[in-house]
């Protein structure tokens, strides 16, 4: 790959990262301390950028210079968000997700399309027992946080701050119009995880397991109520949305992979979930529009069960609820 394309790639990625109301030329001229004309010439590739300029730009926008040098056709740059127990805590992760949803809500036109493999993370945050369990499982089994090494589950294993942030996240999410594509398998991993903790002796009593299953049941019933209304709202609250803001699809033949597409005033971003909680995102136009086409095709093969198709909706949610009921019976 020639430098022109490394340079071109760098400026394209910078453009993707900037909010639509910010001028790229102004930012580049400010970072490089050059005139607007000089910035334009660099953006257009007429003036090759020098080592010090590449260094300044990469430092400012958190890009890797190595990545620029190793590009291949079809390369897409993702920004990765990865929790670790040292520099980037779970609390910071939830807080950043909240900022992200708030940022999405600041746009006039916005929507989220979620091709889900599991119960989407934010739906876990309506009821305290489920919030506590999710937190416990992720900290102990996924992040392997040392504080949880010899710890069993208790309802108060989560700090009030993290619980409050989680609920705040759910409250913010209900304001964003969204499309979710589910399969009846989506609930399986949550159930497996509760069973895993039960079998491993992490619960101090059967009563705790029952409380968590009940919270999961309430969660599913609440998602069903939102699908029925075609609007999102918090439990025991009225929807703030005057028009419908929730489309729920039932796909029988494909289990999603937690691919998320976000549209804000015509700009698309794709978020890909990996390793349970981590995600990476891109605003690469080609990649996002291809994802959008793929997901649209899947939607055409799925049944819309929000607001309409009451029978199909009942069948879908009854399958999920019966899985929980079966587990509760075994307690």
């Amino acid at each position, binding site marked *: 790959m020639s*430098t022109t394309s*490394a340079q071109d790639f760098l400026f394209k990625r910078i453009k993707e990262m900037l909010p639509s109301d910010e001028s790229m030329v102004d930012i580049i001229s400010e970072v490089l301390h050059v005139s607007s004309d000089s910035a334009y010439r660099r953006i257009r590739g007429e003036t090759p*950028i*020098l*080592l*010090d*300029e*590449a*260094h300044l730009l990469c430092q400012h926008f*958190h*890009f*890797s*210079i*190595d*990545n*620029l*040098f*190793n*590009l*291949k056709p*079809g*390369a*897409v*740059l*993702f*920004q*990765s*968000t*990865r929790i670790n127990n040292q520099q980037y805590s779970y609390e910071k992760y939830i807080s950043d997700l909240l900022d992200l949803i708030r940022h999405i809500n600041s746009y006039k036109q916005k929507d989220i399309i979620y*091709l889900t493999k*599991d119960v989407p993370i934010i739906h876990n945050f309506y009821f305290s027992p489920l919030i506590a369990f999710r937190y416990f499982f992720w900290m102990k*089994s996924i992040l*392997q946080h040392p504080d949880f090494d010899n710890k069993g589950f208790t309802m108060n294993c989560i700090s009030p701050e993290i619980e409050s942030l989680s609920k705040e996240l759910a409250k913010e999410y209900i304001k964003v119009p969204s499309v979710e594509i589910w*399969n009846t*398998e989506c609930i*399986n*991993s949550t159930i*497996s*995880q509760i069973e*895993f903790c039960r079998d491993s002796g992490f619960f101090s009593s059967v009563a705790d397991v029952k409380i968590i299953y009940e919270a999961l049941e309430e969660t599913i019933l609440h998602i069903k109520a939102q699908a029925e209304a075609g609007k999102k709202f918090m439990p025991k609250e009225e929807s703030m949305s005057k028009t419908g803001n929730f489309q729920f699809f039932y796909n*029988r*033949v*494909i*289990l999603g*992979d937690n*691919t998320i597409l976000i549209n804000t005033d015509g700009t698309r971003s*794709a978020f*890909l979930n*990996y*390793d*349970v909680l*981590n995600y990476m995102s891109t605003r690469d136009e*080609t990649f996002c529009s*291809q*994802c959008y*086409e793929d*997901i649209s*095709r*899947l939607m055409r*093969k799925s049944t819309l069960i929000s607001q309409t198709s009451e029978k199909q909706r009942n069948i879908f949610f009854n399958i999920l609820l019966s899985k929980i009921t079966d587990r509760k019976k075994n307690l």
Partner: protein
Amino acid sequence: MTTGEIQHLLFKTIKGKSIEDSNLAEEIGRLLDKSTDSAYRRIRGEKTLSLDELQTLCLHFKISIDNLIGLQSPGVIFTGEYLDKKTFRFEEYVNSLIQNLSYMNSFKEKTFYYSCKDLPIFHHYHFREIAAFKWFFWLKTYFQFPEFEKKKFNFKDHPDELFVKEQKVLDLYNQLPSVEIWNLESMNIFFRQIEFYRDSQVFNSDEDVYQLYESIGKMWVHLEKQASLGYKFDYNDPTQKRIGNLKMYFNEVLLGDNNMLLEMDGSRMSYVSHTTINFMFTRDEAFNLNMYNHMQNQMQRSTLISEVSERERARFFRLIREKIEHRKESLKV
């Protein structure tokens, strides 16, 4: 760090790669297509390197400029061909699988990790019936090709020459020492696809559905045999000659995501799946280390059912076999 300091450090690193001072300027001049004098000016820091020149030097001398200047970036570059309905050709897709697997096999030391959400694609190719169904499902339902719109499923439609290539894919996969992390849910979507076609009357008869389940049953017996031996072998080989090593894990906690990790002669490569059938890969070290740690974590929380843990292995295979048998029994055959 100033530009001068970075440039100084870069040339110091290049010198450290056992190039003598007298030859350094000549070598730099040759690489950058400049005179020896110009090369000297760059080495002495009198002239700043352009991005172009920096790239040439870093790639030639295999130097990480990020490491040199302590640049930390959350950015990860992924590369992958997006499967586009307008240009997609199944044969080419299979060819690319052959190329990728041949590349992986070209390394001396290699291990392939697969976190299964669904039945791994390589296992579609033990039996022609399964290969034919999956091929048809992709073209009709996933890509929605117009010529498949009203078409019913017929085993005979699956081209012979395609199956030859698909078996090559399996053959190459068999050579690759692998770790597969399975879950009880990993076969569910396959069963749902069959049921969906049966409900939609895409099959000509229940006999065809039965035949497909028969092949899945045979594949399942073969996978169990491979797990018990701890290595892969050809289904048609009565001597069961060892090809590649296999470690199989039964994970009851997490459903995989079809992500893959390849370790080859000390380096790593991750394949990430998205929008259900697309893959892209990265060589980003930090990302791959994280993927490796995640795979290790999954393995720690799973039961190794290849070679050892006979009881757990029997349980895992029995539970899925029961699903296959139950479906066969419900057919009007």
